[in-house]
């Protein structure tokens, strides 16, 4: 059951691999700056002239940036801790997606179906 995790006995704590090089951190930082600056620029200047398209682009950039941080800063890969870090991360990501998407989905339909009277303010629901 835990044999994979025991594969790291040879490493003393503090000597685990995958804690990044200066190059890895700088690469992650450069990517993060770009992936942060672009969405702020898009929203603050309205460069795309289309709310829907802007929303899709900034959500996509956020997902990419989360992956960049996970790899470059958190050093999640299939080797660290015998793969258990990646497994836990994937599991958590699935649960996070289910909780957020599921809540939005259910509550959106609840709002649509249960609204007792026309309320104009809800017309712009995402």
């Amino acid at each position, binding site marked *: 059951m*835990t044999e994979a*995790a*025991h594969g*790291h*006995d040879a490493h*003393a*704590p*503090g000597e*685990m691999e995958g*804690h*990044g*090089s*200066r190059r890895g*951190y*700088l690469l*992650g*930082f450069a990517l*993060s*700056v770009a992936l*942060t600056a672009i*969405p*702020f620029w898009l*929203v*603050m200047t309205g460069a795309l002239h289309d*709310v829907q398209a*802007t*929303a899709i682009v*900034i*959500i996509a*950039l*956020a997902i990419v*940036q*989360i992956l960049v*941080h*996970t790899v470059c*800063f*958190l050093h999640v890969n299939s080797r660290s*801790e015998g793969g*258990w*870090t990646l497994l*836990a*991360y994937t*599991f*958590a990501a699935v*649960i*996070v997606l289910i*909780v*957020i998407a*599921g*809540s*939005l989905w259910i*509550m959106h339909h609840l709002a649509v179906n249960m609204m007792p009277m026309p309320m104009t*303010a*809800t017309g*712009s*629901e*995402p």
Partner: protein
Amino acid sequence: MSDTAPEAPVFYDTQDTHHHAPGGSTMLGFWIYLMSDALIFATLFAAFGVLSTAYAGGPTPREIFELPLVALNTAILLVSSITYGFAMIAMQEGRLGGTRLWLALTGLLGAAFVGVELFEFSNLIAEGATPQHSAFLSAFFTLVGTHGLHVSFGIVWLVVMLVQLGQRGLHPENQRRLMCLSMFWHFLDVVWIGVFTFVYLLGVLR
């Protein structure tokens, strides 16, 4: 009478007798904690997502969010990520002075982040956009406030580590603690990506 002679009892050692370095599983355990913390934030994001248009006649995100301030805060947190990275590199190279210098810089940036956030909160409250005003504002203050509280506790931890490094240096236990704090700090930056995208940017777009 059985036809096989009773055999001497055989014992199987089911206990794990491998030698473990003390703290060898701390990193994975702390990682699991972070993943459970991610679930706390997931529920807060879900609540905010559901309530993000429940203005109750109060202010809307476009009226109250100041994107330049948010951009400043985002930049501060992003730079603090790379300074913590440099602290880890200095630690790997065994440079105590460099580690402490980069850690202190990270702590100052973290304090600046919390300061800007408190300034933003006090502005909002002064404008009448209090958590009590609408479900949108309650969800906003809960989500962003929980993140800010995490950063504040991260700063406390960081100060404790600076004291420990000053007293005992870069021994393996302190290295392990610094690696856990590293994960914590970078994890908070990941959560902030979600905050500035889904709360501030999408809020202003809406």
